[in-house]
């Protein structure tokens, strides 16, 4: 059992949890994730670690409501427990002095980009961050990202905050202005990561994306998370989750992630029938995914 030390909504349908997991906190490096299972009948889902505090023995995760499990998770509060939390899994992000780095985060992907942006900044890189959200309420970690960025750009789909547009519009501007970029890190919905990779391809700017395939054990045992990278099968859990965005077959990833769409929908519907409507922080449209892990 892993006790939740703190839990708070940071945007509608997006909740941050601080979980007591001393072993994981001690070993966590930016870019890694945990797999958790809420209860005896729960599924195993991967979620990126947003932050860790080895001294307190805690890790934090940011969870967006997309289905039954994330909905159940978002009903939990400080003092509650999660049955299983295992990690840190996956290879850590490559942290080095690259020079000038652009970190692109979309939706809840910002929470996953944050630890890597922090580590890249600490390594001496110039960090330009572009974060995007649907609207003003959905912008997360603005203050945190600003702290670790030399420059921060924000876009919203509806223009209700900062600039109206997509994160790729801002990246395009940087490219048009011939800004020197040594590395791009993109974390967010698949269409966003694909679009970023397409933009940087012709200038051969190294572009890292963090993939979110279906996963069960997270240790390489099941092979469910296989992704096609440079024409070869790679396991996101042990070979990733970060890969060269120019080599990833995003179409295969999208297609494989749709495998259980009907089952997930059914699961959510049956759960909603059982459940009284829950008010706190869950908007009507929270059911649609804005990417990142679940």
């Amino acid at each position: 059992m892993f006790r939740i030390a703190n839990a708070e909504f940071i945007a509608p349908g997006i909740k941050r949890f601080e979980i007591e997991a001393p072993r994981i906190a001690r070993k966590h490096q930016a870019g890694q994730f945990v797999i958790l299972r809420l209860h005896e009948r729960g599924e195993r889902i991967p979620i990126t670690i947003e932050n860790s505090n080895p001294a307190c023995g805690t890790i934090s995760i940011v969870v967006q409501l997309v289905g039954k499990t994330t909905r159940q998770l978002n009903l939990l509060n400080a003092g509650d427990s999660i049955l299983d939390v295992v990690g840190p899994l996956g290879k850590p992000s490559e942290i080095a002095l690259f020079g000038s780095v652009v970190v692109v985060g979309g939706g809840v992907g910002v929470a996953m980009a944050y630890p890597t942006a922090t580590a890249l900044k600490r390594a001496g890189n110039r960090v330009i961050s572009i974060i995007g959200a649907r609207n003003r309420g959905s912008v997360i970690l603005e203050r945190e990202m600003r702290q670790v960025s030399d420059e921060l750009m924000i876009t919203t789909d509806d223009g209700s905050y900062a600039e109206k547009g997509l994160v790729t519009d801002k990246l395009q501007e940087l490219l048009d202005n011939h800004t020197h970029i040594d590395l791009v890190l993109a974390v967010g919905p698949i269409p966003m990561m694909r679009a970023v990779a397409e933009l940087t391809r012709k200038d051969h700017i190294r572009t890292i994306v963090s993939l979110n395939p279906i996963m069960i054990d997270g240790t390489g045992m099941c092979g469910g998370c296989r992704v096609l990278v440079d024409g070869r099968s790679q396991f996101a859990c042990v070979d990733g989750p970060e890969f060269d965005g120019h080599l990833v077959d995003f179409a295969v990833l999208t297609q494989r992630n749709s495998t259980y769409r009907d089952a997930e929908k059914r699961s959510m519907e049956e759960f909603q029938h059982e459940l009284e409507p829950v008010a706190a922080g869950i908007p009507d449209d929270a059911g649609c995914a804005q990417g990142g892990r679940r």
Partner: protein
Amino acid sequence: MTPVATRSPNPLHLKERIKIPRQHMPEQPAEERAHNFTEVNLGYSAELARQEALRCLECEKPTCMDKCPVGVKVREFVRLIVAGDFLGAAAKIREDNVLPAITGRVCPQEDHCEGSCKLCKKGESLGIGYLERFVADYEQRMGAISPPTASATGKRVAVVGSGPSGLTVAGDLVQRGHQVRVFEALHELGGVLVYGIPEFRLPKNIVHEQVDQLRAMGVEFETDVVVGKTVTIDELMEEEHYDAVFIGTGAGLPLFMNIPGEHLNGVYSANEFLTRINLMKAYQFPKYDQPMVDLHGKDVAVIGGGNTALDAIRSALRLGARKAYVIYRRSEAEMPARAEEVRHARQEGIEFRMLTSPIEFLSDGKGWLGGLRCMSMQLGEPDASGRRRPVPIPGSEFELPLSVAVIAIGTSANPVIQSTTTGLATDTRGYIQADTLTQRTSRKGVFAGGDIVTGTATVILAMAAGRRSAKSIHEYLSTGLW
């Protein structure tokens, strides 16, 4: 009278024993069990067990015991069954095997004890596996009595992985007075026994009972720890002060075929397919949350000829598959699966397509599997494994309509521990190098056994490696000599 006869409680003359036919294991009828996950074999009654035990010839040189990888004293435990001392028989098995209820169900006895039984020459071998299962289950029903443990040595051993080798090491060492803690990456204990082998062949409560018994003996367990990630072997030894470590992490990454279409939805590794069903109980979706592709009315094939392949396809049948095929590139004689599983599978209606090799997974045009393009094979000269090599027959290509395919062609080494442990030597395929007798690795105080050393093998061979490791670890902890 020979000494054997004087000690024997068996009243029958050898000629009479030979005349008794092998007692059939009561089974769930094939047409029923093909639709449920309840165990296929129902187990001997006490009468059946005694009747079967009476068949034992009590050989003066029992080859069955020699052929048992863990050296179970078959003749002695069978005698105790004849004498009606079932708990005594269980205790006798436990001297050499801490997981009798499991091996009694999944061990390929025909390759070991039963294969060497003298009764084979006269007819069918003694049902040693069935008898082992009977006494283990009897013991469990009566409330298992833990074997005595030696006084505490103060030495601490970390066991990595709670599969058959790890559980064996833990049981053997805790009996010798060492403090043992088992680390498991998954949320349930048992390794392949819980994620791999289905309920209808090995009920999970059997595994839980065996684990509980080890716990009662003093073994500590910690789940959700991926050694190499959550904590390294170096840290276990240097910071958590374990005196020795046993690595029994088992079969690793599933192998794929590297043929076109392998990324289509509906193409699974056997590990994923079985983990969803066994560990995650996806067959009870949506009562359990992990989803599973709906197999009702669909045509499903497994590729491979081992026990894992049969477990997968028989599970698919139980989940409503209309057609369920085993596609294997050699002939039935070369199939590594247990004879009993092949027989059970055939009774249930599994279709065997032997001498067939897939060459392409075909799309249904919507991202899902629609069929499998195959080639017929013929057997050529023997290959490195000693089995005749399958050779494609030119122009024999054909297509099989399919919705789901499960790849069960084996595994390769999982590199997580090897890449995070200093001074741990591996072979060219990435498996951990360990001495075949002592199971010592290149790293002082670190031992390894089971599939992570040998590559994919069986439960009983992993347990045998566990036994050797426990003996060797005990020696190391007692003498300090490496």
